[in-house]
């Protein structure tokens, strides 16, 4: 792997890390497997891209993207809590609906951002070269998001969110409306995923309706890698692990794409297969390990 590829992987890891933190919030904290993210990542990208091309400040466009993702997440959670649709199915429904919505927002399957203003402009104007500007901006965003979530989960409301995922009967008996908490939590999660999508679009110079495919699997892979390598015995540690897991995941992918066996090498389109195998292995490994030890 070249230095250039490594830097690119770290950059990707940090920006997708914001998405991974959102996935961690639903998947692990709320115990709510949420596939909405495959739709809310391009949703954030489309909103931000359309906002920027209409002359809105790129930083302000992030706020719109976040709000859009939040609403998408809320819809999934409302379908689940108020209308009793299974969480997986509810999130798939929102995800599918978002595909059409994203094309409507962009007025087509993609929007190019070449030559438009982006969040990187201030940094590049300071004279920092392009390939470092991304890393710097994404590091600032992902670390701030991690710090915010860790702070938030230590507030009174945050503790109620933790307890809702852990023991809903108990927290209901303590007077918490778990439906409201789930709607808030899944909304927040998708808001972060959309923020991640908006930053990715600005980085790669385009928003595309297909850019969200496999988001949930990449998110899960990062979460599992993070937990395995860095541990999860406190909220702070778990979220730092999720962010670092995202970086390790992108480095691993970059490494895999560089591997050559004679005439055979991986294509970027093999990514989803590699990731799926990785997640399957990570999910069954603890069970296999237990069996081996038992023998």
């Amino acid at each position, binding site marked *: 792997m070249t230095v250039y590829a490594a830097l690119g992987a770290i950059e990707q890891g940090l920006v997708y890390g914001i998405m991974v933190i959102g996935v961690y919030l639903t998947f692990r904290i709320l115990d709510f497997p949420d596939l909405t993210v495959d739709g809310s990542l391009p949703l954030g990208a489309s909103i931000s891209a359309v906002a920027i091309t209409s002359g809105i400040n790129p930083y302000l466009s992030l706020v719109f993207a976040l709000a859009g993702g939040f609403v998408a997440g809320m819809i999934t959670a409302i379908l689940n809590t108020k209308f009793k649709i299974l969480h997986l199915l509810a999130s798939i429904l929102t995800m599918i609906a978002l595909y059409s919505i994203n094309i409507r927002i962009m007025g087509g399957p993609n929007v190019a951002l070449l030559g438009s203003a982006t969040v990187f402009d201030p940094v590049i104007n300071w004279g920092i070269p392009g390939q470092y500007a991304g890393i710097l901006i994404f590091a600032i965003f992902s670390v701030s998001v991690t710090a915010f979530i860790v702070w*938030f989960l*230590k*507030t*009174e*409301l*945050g*503790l*109620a969110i*933790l*307890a809702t995922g*852990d*023991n809903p*009967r*108990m*927290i*209901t*008996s*303590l*007077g*918490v*409306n*778990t439906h409201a908490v789930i709607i808030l939590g899944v909304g927040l999660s998708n808001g972060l995923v959309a923020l991640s999508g908006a930053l990715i679009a600005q980085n790669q110079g385009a928003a595309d309706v297909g850019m969200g495919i496999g988001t949930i699997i990449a998110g899960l892979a990062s979460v599992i890698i993070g937990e395995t390598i860095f541990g999860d015995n406190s909220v702070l540690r778990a979220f730092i692990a999720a962010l670092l897991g995202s970086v390790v995941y992108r480095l691993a992918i970059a490494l895999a794409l560089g591997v050559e066996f004679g005439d055979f090498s991986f294509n970027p389109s093999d990514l989803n297969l590699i990731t799926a195998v990785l997640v399957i292995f990570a999910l069954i490994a603890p069970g296999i390990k237990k069996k081996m030890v038992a023998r």
Partner: protein
Amino acid sequence: MISLKNCNKYFHKGSVNEVFALNSVNLDIAEGDFISIIGSNGAGKSTLLNSIAGVFMLDSGSIMIGDRDVTSWPEYKRAKFLSRVFQDPLLGTCPSATIEQNIALAKKRGQWRGFSRGVKVKDRPEFQEKLKILGLGLENRLQDKVGLLSGGQRQALTMLMATMIRPEVLLLDEHVAALDPKTARQILTLTEEIVGHQELTTLMITHNMKHAIQFGNRLIMLHQGRVISDVAGEEKKNLTVGDLLQKFYASSEEELVTDAMLLA
């Protein structure tokens, strides 16, 4: 304090598995009453408590708590003035949160939860003081995760959490049934202390007739969704297990029921 009027509750209505869990239950509970509830399996004891707690809505009838008609209130809203301890020690606490986080959650029962710190430094002495009463040494383990505690310890903690801020009504659903006899005795003693100290209106389900006789000032026996016996005061004090069994046979009209089924 609590008034149930003509309460009816079916489960699986209209199917072959239809159960008439509460059959025109009328019950008036005075402030400060400590009621023990007994009855065979499927008699409607838990259904009665869950109806009061708002876990599900009644099919018909009404429930008043204080001067509030709570019949259509959801569970989380009733929690403002009502506390519960479940049979399963795992249900009352949050395993991945620390002891102090659990107590802090309970300290906010029924109140608005905002953005101030979940566990406040100034509250720690109060938490430790209350934990000391349990006599389990938990006051030195505030930062330990509750998942590390034993069932008995978790149930003691749940008892403390349920009464962290005084509830108007305390509902105990066989809260010592899953514990070993020694721990059960400790939790019951703790229950009696807290209920006496805070002068709580309490409903306690038990399968242990001795406990039912020993604790509380009133005893209710349920059978097939109906209240078949309701004794209080002097009569309650002089009850024996034999009396209870007799009462059961006299009013249940069901000759097939054996002692074993009642005591199960």
